[in-house]
Structures are given as structure tokens and as C-alpha cells.
């Protein structure tokens, strides 16, 4: 109990610092127009959440889909803001349409995250084989994304 309490006390300032840094990076990205700082900010926010998980150590944090959707909305709005730095005369209703897309995406992310969380809750397994399978799946997914994204026509 004492050790957990200590971890919680240490994690709070670390998490707060990470969130502050993330906000700083986000503001920097928007003010300076550096899009790479947005991903830094997202990673810092993710790290803050990971620190919170490590400190609290819940069996399964049910707020994870909300955190995921929040991170996605933050990222979308940040990138949108960067795109708007370029002065472009858009058609009427363009902003509303994109806002709708972002909202749908956030809801979709929330649903997907909840589904994944439910699957993770149902099939809690452990072992090297599971780890290897997860690593291979993650690497494969990333490889597909990278290859598809780099393809030029």
C-alpha cells in the first residue's frame, strides 16, 4: 500500500509535467507552423496517460476509448489549424463539412476503441506466443500503412 501511494504521488507531477510539455509543443506547432511538433505533443499526451496507468495500475481502464478519441480530436484540430495557415478561399460550408467528418471520426474511434477494449477484456491471455503475435501484428500493420502511404502514382 505504501509503495503504491508513493508511486501515485510521484506519477502525478510527472504526468502533469508531460501534459504541460505536450501543451507547449502543441502551441509551438500551431504558432510556428511545425507539423512535426503535433506528433510530439500527441506522444507526450500518450506518455502522460501511460504514466497514469502505471501509477494507478487498474485492471482495465475503461476511460481508454475516451482518451483515444480525445487524442484523435486534438490531432485533427491541430492539423486542421495548420492547414488553415495557408490562406485559401474555400466554398461555403466547407468548414462545417470537415467538422462533421472529424466528429464522425471521433465517434468511430470511440466505438472501435470500446470494441477493442471489450475484446481485450474477454481474451486476457499472457505468454511469449501472444507477445510475438502482437508484435508481428503491430509491425505488419505499420508496414502496410507505410508502404501504402509511400506509394506514388
Amino acid at each position, binding site marked *: 500500500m505504501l509503495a503504491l501511494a508513493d508511486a501515485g504521488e510521484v506519477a502525478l507531477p510527472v504526468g502533469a509535467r508531460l501534459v504541460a510539455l505536450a501543451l507547449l509543443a502543441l502551441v509551438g506547432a500551431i504558432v510556428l507552423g511545425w507539423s512535426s511538433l503535433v506528433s510530439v505533443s500527441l*506522444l507526450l499526451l*500518450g506518455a502522460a496517460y501511460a504514466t497514469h496507468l502505471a501509477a494507478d495500475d487498474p485492471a482495465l481502464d475503461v476511460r481508454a476509448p475516451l482518451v483515444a478519441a480525445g*487524442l484523435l480530436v486534438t*490531432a485533427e484540430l491541430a492539423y486542421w489549424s495548420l492547414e488553415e495557415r495557408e*490562406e485559401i478561399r474555400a466554398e461555403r460550408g466547407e468548414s462545417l463539412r470537415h467538422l462533421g467528418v472529424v466528429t464522425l471520426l471521433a465517434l468511430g474511434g470511440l466505438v472501435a476503441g470500446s470494441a477493442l477494449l471489450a475484446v481485450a477484456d474477454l481474451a486476457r491471455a499472457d505468454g511469449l506466443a501472444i*507477445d510475438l503475435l502482437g508484435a508481428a501484428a*503491430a509491425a505488419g500493420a*505499420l508496414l502496410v500503412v507505410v508502404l501504402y*502511404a509511400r506509394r506514388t*502514382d
Partner: protein
Amino acid sequence: MTRAASPRLEGYVIVLAVALVAALVLRRPELAVVAAPFALSLALGLRAAGAPAVAAALAVDAERVVERDEIPATIEVRAATRVERLELLLALPEGVEVASGPGAFAVRLAAGEERSIPVALRCSRWGIYDVGELRLRARDALRIVTWERTVADTTRVSAYPRTESLRRILAPRETQVFTGSEVARTKGDGIEYADLREYVPGDRLRSINWRATARRGGLVVNEQHPERNTDVVLFVDSFSDVQHAGRSTLDDAVRATATLAARYLERRDRVGLVTFGGILRWLQPAMGTSQRFRLVEALLETGVEPTYMWRDVNVIPARILPPKALIVGITPLLDRRFVATMADLRGRGFDLAVVEVDPISYVEAGRTELERLAYRLWLLDRGVLRGRLARLGIAVARWGHDTELDAALEGVRTYRRRARLARV
């Protein structure tokens, strides 16, 4: 179109990778859940991002305009496939700008849709511009992937220099043989009264001055000055240029030249052009509207080309500098070679006048004592050059930004009324 990853794609891939690795290392499925919306966004975006088939062009409605006038243009877009967001960015050359609003547009096109977007352009400076380059950037609905292409189907637009207001021009000392608007010093058929003389056989009856005849007791006829045209050669100094805050002496010199050319041509005078600098260009004196266009087109190519090769007026064909022509030098009075050329022409007996495009307002005196000393020396040097021209009997009109060209030329007119042409 060339496919490219958006910053969103790169950022999401990084977040996805780090979250998945962290989930495996820390054995926290929540971190994989955090990665799920990013994976979903990437999956949907990459799946929906098909290559768009788009054709676009910028059609410019006028190929000849006066600087600072608006040029109506239209962006024509046609999409064979559906495009969620097509950004059209005008890549305009330096000197051309969009008259109002941004130079980029975003449209959403359905398959087979055509769209015309009106846009007003403006040339901020005279010159020749290739207008029409368009950069197309198509994005999918989730803006994960971008497709880019540049359309370089350009139209050449000539922006003519804006003319200054000028009511009176410099009258050449001598006239030519063709009918024009300048009252000649010689006597002949004309409107302007010149003198009286005794009647000689062959004189027309209507030229008899009956009052004078009654007083003198013999037939007396009126004599008139005929109206003749003149030859004018505009000599533009393109050896050097002073630029400051978007203005330049060469720009002003070209505007003054265009103004003078237009006014002389309106009077049926023959006007020629010599741009004297790194590259020597000339245009034979001629009259008429077509000559005006030729002159302006030749002026548009004027620029400062640095050279160490010295060419004097001997290389200019004799027909370019006809006898009895008035040569008007338009110069910022910065290069001694131009002054030497004026002296050379003066030595050949040409009637000369100089319009000095004053560069004083383009130059700051400097902050340090040394800079201010250099500035004062420069001013003195300019005074010396001006004095050299004055000693040769060449009137100099100083035309600055605070002076009208008309007012500057008035001083020259006064000088020339009192001066007499001397052979040197």
C-alpha cells in the same frame, strides 16, 4: 498527379507505432486502444484516397494591360472523378498579384463536374509576364493523402507602363518636312501668321492682306509658319538602377519614356528609341499608333544588364539618329558613360535635353559619419555631372517623386526658349 503523404499521415503512423510498441512492452491493452482511432483514420483515409482525375487551366482575358489595372481571368476546372477537396493555388510571377483576396481556392467537385472560378489579377509593375501556372492539390475526405500537380500552361501578358500626366512637351528646335503639329520656324503654307511681304506673281489671292495693301499702296501678302512634324529620339539610360521600397529609377524612366512617346506620337511626330546600357537596343523613328505599341513593347524588355564592354554611339546606325532630331535623354544620372554619350551627341550637333529621374528619394543619407560623408560626396558628384551637361548647353529637368513631369519639363522649356544652339 503525384501522391504524397500529408503531415497527418506521418504523425498518425508515428503515434500508432509508438502506442502499439508501448502496449506490448508495458503489457497495457489500453495503449493499443489509444492507437485504435488513429489506425481507423489511417485505414479509412488510405482506402478512400483514389487518384483524382482533374484538369485545370487559368484563362487570362487580356494579354495587354496597363500596369496596376485589373486583369480578368478565370480558373476552369473539370473533374472526371469525385474530389473531396481540390485546392487551386495560383503560382504568379513576381510583379503579378491577385487584385483582392487570396490567390488560392478550394472546391469540392463531383464526378464530371466543371467549375469556373473568376479571379482578378493585377500587374504591380510594367513588364512581360507568363501568367497561368497553377498548382493543384487534391485531398481525400480525411485529408490523409494529398495528390499534387502543377499546370504550366501560361499566357504571356504585357503590362504597359502607366503614363504620367503631361500637358505640354518639349518642342524640338527644328522641324521635318511632313505635316504635323509643330509650328516651323520657316515660312510657308500654314495657319500661324509669320510676316508680310510684297506680292509676287503666283501668290494666292486669298493670302493678300487687304488692310496692309490699302495702307502701303501696293499688294501685300501674309506669310505663315507651316505646321510640321518633328523627329524625337528617346534615349533611355539603362546602365544603372536604384531601387527602394518597391520603386526604382528604371521603372520611373520607362514611365517617363512611355509618356513622352505617347504625347509626341499624338502630334504626328516620328519617335525613335535607344536604350543605352548593358545591352544596346534601338528602334527607328516612325509615327503612328503601331509605333507606339512597338515602342512600349521595346521598353518592356528594358533592364539593367551589367557590362564592362563600352560601346559608344558610333555603333548606332545613322538612320536611328536622324539629322535635326531632338534627343531626349532619360537618366538617373548615375553613370558617367551616359553623360559622355550626351556630350558626344552634343558634339555632333544634335538638339538635346535631359530628364533626370532623381534617385535622391531612393537613397538614405546613412547613420554613421562616414556614410553621411559618402552621401554628400555622391550629391556633389551628381552636381558635377549636371554641371557638365549645363556647360554643353543641355537643359536638365529634375523629375522626382514630389514633382510632376510637366513641372519638371517647364524648366527645360524656359531654358531652351532663352538658349541658342551653338556648335561645340
